[in-house]
């Protein structure tokens, strides 16, 4: 009666290789990308005036661990500064956005109360908050985190709202016939049902947070990966710009990986 659980994809997509082979394929993908990139520059198809070679970037990465030029901070300090901003904004967005979305999706009164405000705030681009943020919060960590917060908050609310709205009626009815109160149904049925969608929202929020980082660090920062990119532009150093971009990309991927671990723990039943 039990469905056999094998490595092979149940829908027959792929050949059912060993997980090790799939890991190797991912690594091979990255290496191929870097190789083609290097090859285009070495053969002169693309001029190295506009773009650095991966090998040069790697050497720059090592050098930037101790070298403060041209942006005034080493790579670990810049990374830490950006991490502080991104994590503060993102965590704030998750802890406020997800519960708000869930409550709006479940309780009609809350939906009617918050929806008009939310619908007006939603289309405002996060970076358009920059001038007001300077007036309200100055140019410190709080101000930058606020910009990130706005970028990450919206998908958290929307997805958890949509997720809980999609709770199967039959599951609600099962809980109802057991004599559960509306609040019990909310946290025992609604919230777990909404989790897959909520995590998808947090994933989008994560992407938004990192992509808004450069804009947030336009707020007169003195360290950070976004700031490093801006300085690279000012000093016409494409290698610094690219290093900043690669670091943001790598951090984003790392965060997605960490989120994936949490997601697997919470929504592991979907496997």
């Amino acid at each position: 009666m039990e469905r056999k659980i094998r490595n092979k994809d149940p829908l027959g997509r792929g050949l059912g290789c060993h997980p090790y082979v799939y890991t190797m394929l991912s690594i091979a993908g990255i290496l191929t990308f870097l190789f083609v990139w290097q090859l285009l520059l070495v053969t002169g198809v693309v001029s190295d005036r506009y773009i650095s070679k991966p090998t040069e970037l790697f050497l720059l990465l090592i050098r930037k661990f101790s070298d403060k030029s041209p942006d005034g901070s080493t790579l670990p300090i810049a990374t830490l500064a950006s991490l502080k901003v991104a994590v503060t904004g993102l965590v704030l967005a998750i802890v406020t956005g997800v519960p708000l979305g869930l409550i709006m999706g479940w309780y009609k009164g809350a939906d009617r109360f918050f929806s008009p405000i939310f619908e007006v705030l939603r289309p405002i681009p996060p970076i358009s908050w920059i001038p007001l943020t300077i007036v309200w919060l100055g140019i410190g960590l709080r101000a930058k985190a606020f910009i990130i917060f706005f970028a990450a908050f919206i998908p958290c609310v929307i997805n958890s709202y949509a997720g809980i709205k999609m709770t199967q009626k039959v599951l609600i009815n099962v809980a109802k016939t057991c004599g559960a109160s509306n609040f019990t149904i909310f946290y025992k049925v609604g919230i777990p049902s909404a989790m897959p969608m909520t995590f998808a929202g947090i994933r989008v929020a994560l992407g938004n947070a990192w992509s808004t980082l450069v804009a947030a660090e336009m707020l007169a920062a003195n360290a950070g990966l976004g700031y490093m990119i801006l300085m690279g532009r000012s000093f016409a150093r494409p290698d610094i710009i690219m290093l900043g971009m690669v670091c943001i990309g790598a951090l984003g991927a790392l965060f997605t990986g960490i989120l994936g671990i949490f997601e697997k723990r919470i929504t592991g039943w979907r496997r």
Partner: protein
Amino acid sequence: MSTAEHNEVKVQVKNLTKKFGSLHVLDNISFDIKKGEFMCVVGPTGCGKTTFLNMLTKIYEPTGGELRIDGELADPKKHNLACVFQEPSSFPWLTVEENLKFGLKIKKLPEKEIQERVETIIRIMGLEKFRKSYPGQLSVSSEQRVIIGRAFAMQPDLLLMDEPYGQMDIKLRFYLEDEVLRLWREFGTTVVFITHNIEEAVYLSERCLILTNKPAAIKEIVENKLPYPRDIAGEDFITLRKHITEQIKWW
């Protein structure tokens, strides 16, 4: 179960009426269900069988009339109701064991009692090896067994089943019909089983309630005294099935 106990009225349905705006679905339905009785409800498609069940589960409030369990107005918070719905209704994020515990935890039963009941169901339903599996890892029949098991674990005052085998093939249906009879005998639960399959109704029920077309009213309540296990090819079985089919005909 003793005859005296079996004659005791468990559920009283009095003048149950339901209207959705101008749509009159149920019309003045009254009947009793005895303690530990297995009652099937049949009727033409779309006659309001599921609405009827949703009233019994208190998902819908009736427009008129009332439902009493042990003489008191039915209330899911006070009484023990359980329902097996037409569509799969296991909680996909809970393991088999956690699914079986769901209603018992809502009723705030002591942990020891919950554990004992769940173990009994797991043993009776043969779910030992799926205990830690999620419903998505089970076959359709195993999942349905979990849902039925969860309902019986509640040891409900009234168990309602809404065409639980509607989507299943004949082999699976026969297997699960016997399973439900086994659980019913084991726990002495009062069961209302809604089906559009007349053979199923004759196979399972002690009494069979036939509903008319919309607005649904009771056409007849048929006593079914055939001994269990029933032979679907037996002469008496076929006669009873034919009688119910004749009664149900609306064309």
